[in-house]
């Protein structure tokens, strides 16, 4: 007798692996998020609103968003440039530079925070120059942005790099034979090709910056209303055994992250619309 027909899967044991993956995802992503939402729901809308709209919380959100925006704009440009340089130029030490690009991923964020603080404090190597020039970094929003930029730049570089690498050189050559100058080739051929990846990288970098904690607390000074970030405020509330306060702030951060992911996906979908096959 023939066994009953079953569609062939590409992966052997597909059902098992799918099951494991879903279980894992549920355990480490969905349940914590759900717990957070339930905790928040417990508070009730009125108290929730009072917590998140308190002047100190609003200031913390504003500072976090502003610094993350600064860091992301910086990384968007610098990360793109870095990916470009790493692929298009040959120079000594290129491999080392390429490997260094991953340091922010590997380095404990506290170590990053400590070394940045040491470098940029008034008597550090960079601070000794910047401070007298009237550009204080440590204990300002610039310090926060700096720490965020440091920890999130690999997201941009490492998402743009492979796409740039895979780009058919014939595209640029075709543009050259059609009379395009270097700037036109970049803006009209290269950049549109890497745009979806670049947007994705920037959004992840932004989301990562919103949540960064370890590197920032050292350099920020953590003055309420001035250099206190939202994640730290949640931490302080927790230390005060104010679970509701912590959960409410964390929920807002979660909301930001989800909106970002949504926006990122929409942008990527739009930027890659031409990939759609006709059906």
């Amino acid at each position, binding site marked *: 007798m023939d066994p009953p027909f079953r569609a062939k899967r590409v992966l052997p044991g597909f059902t098992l692996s799918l099951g494991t993956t879903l279980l894992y995802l549920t355990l480490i992503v969905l349940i914590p998020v759900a717990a957070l939402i339930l905790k928040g729901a417990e508070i009730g809308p009125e108290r929730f609103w009072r917590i998140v709209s308190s002047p100190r919380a609003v200031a913390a959100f504003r500072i976090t968003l502003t610094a993350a925006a600064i860091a992301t704009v910086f990384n968007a440009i610098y990360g793109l440039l870095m990916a470009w340089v790493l692929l298009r130029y040959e120079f000594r030490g290129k491999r080392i530079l390429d490997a260094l690009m991953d340091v922010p991923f590997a380095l404990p964020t506290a170590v990053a925070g400590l070394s940045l603080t040491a470098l940029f404090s008034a008597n550090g190597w960079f601070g000794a120059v910047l401070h007298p020039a009237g550009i204080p970094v440590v204990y300002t929003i610039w310090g926060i942005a700096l720490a965020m930029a440091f920890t999130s730049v690999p997201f941009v570089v490492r998402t743009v790099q492979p796409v740039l690498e895979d780009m058919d050189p014939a595209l640029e050559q075709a543009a050259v*034979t*059609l009379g395009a100058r270097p700037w036109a080739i970049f803006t009209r051929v290269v950049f549109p090709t890497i745009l979806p990846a670049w947007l994705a990288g920037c959004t992840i970098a932004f989301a990562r910056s919103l949540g960064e904690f370890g590197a920032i607390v050292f350099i920020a000074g953590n003055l309420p209303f001035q250099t206190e970030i939202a994640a730290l405020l949640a931490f302080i509330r927790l230390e005060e055994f104010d679970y509701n306060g912590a959960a409410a702030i964390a929920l807002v951060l979660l909301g930001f992250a989800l909106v970002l992911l949504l926006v990122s996906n929409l942008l990527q979908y739009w930027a890659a619309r031409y990939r759609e096959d006709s059906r």
Partner: protein
Amino acid sequence: MAISISHLTKRFGQTDVLRGIDLGVEKGELVALLGPSGSGKTTLLKIIAGLEWPDSGRLVVDEADWLQLAAQDRRIGFVFQHYALFPHMSVRDNLAFGLTVRPRSARPAKAVIAAKVEELLHFLQISHLGDRYPAQLSGGQRQRVALGRALAIEPSILLLDEPFGALDAAIRRDLRRWLRGVHEATGSTTIFVTHDQEEAFELADRVVVMGEGQIAQIGDADAIHDHPATPFVARFMGATVELPVTMQSGRARADGLDLTVLPRRALPDGPAQVFARPEDIIPQPDPAGPWRIISRTSNGANLRLVLRHPDLGEAELDTPRRAVAADCMIADASMRLRIAFGTIFPGDRRNPAPASEPENIPQLEKTP
């Protein structure tokens, strides 16, 4: 425009990719570059386009030294092997690219560009596809768009790198005829690369056979087919059977081979080789013949026989299956072979004639 290339060389690292190319192309001519993979065809095309630079040599187009000219200023239409259409632009924007990218002072008005694009779409017979993206087109349609994009800038010279390489046979034939029409309509000097002989001969006024970075022979289909200039060209044109012979006052001789129909050649007495196509070798049953059939396969219309000679080695040949003598073409049968058509080159197997120096090869003697 007329192209004149002299002594062009190019190396990549340790490999000599072009080893002294001399080639002239007349205005309005359609020339095919034919050669095996890696022979430097694409490199030559890219040097003409300004996408690569030679190490030495000259490239002159209508008296102007093009090695002093940036690729952008050459007004070349280049069609890439895999089309290289801009994936994020619609067909219309792809076609318009060469015009919209011009500096403001030289750029035609928007309406003029749009009209030009419409005209091209019509000419390419893809009017209904203007708003699609390249990913939504078939291979043949992409090929047309790629050609249209190159034609939009009204190029002085059209260069095509294996334009039909990735298409199936039926579409190839269609597009071939269509490209010939395009060439006649635009009158632009055209060079195209291919490694398909049929395509080269059907389409081109002249065919340039390239091998290992050099031009082995230039000519039309008949000349290259009948009088290959070098063993390399002979092999490339399908003369895959190589047999050692002995020259004696201009005639080739060998045991068990009937070479009397081959014309005399002014070669010194001594060892030489005859190159022949499998279908130009006629087997003749002969109980005393030195050739033994060692294998026989059929493709329906033809028998493919492999024969062995105790001294000369093996020969492969095709013979019609319905021929009268086919019945006795069985394994182990004894045969003589008549070479109905072939080319003789000096040298023997261990000391072959130089493949890359056609000037060393004596010209074919005129038969009275």
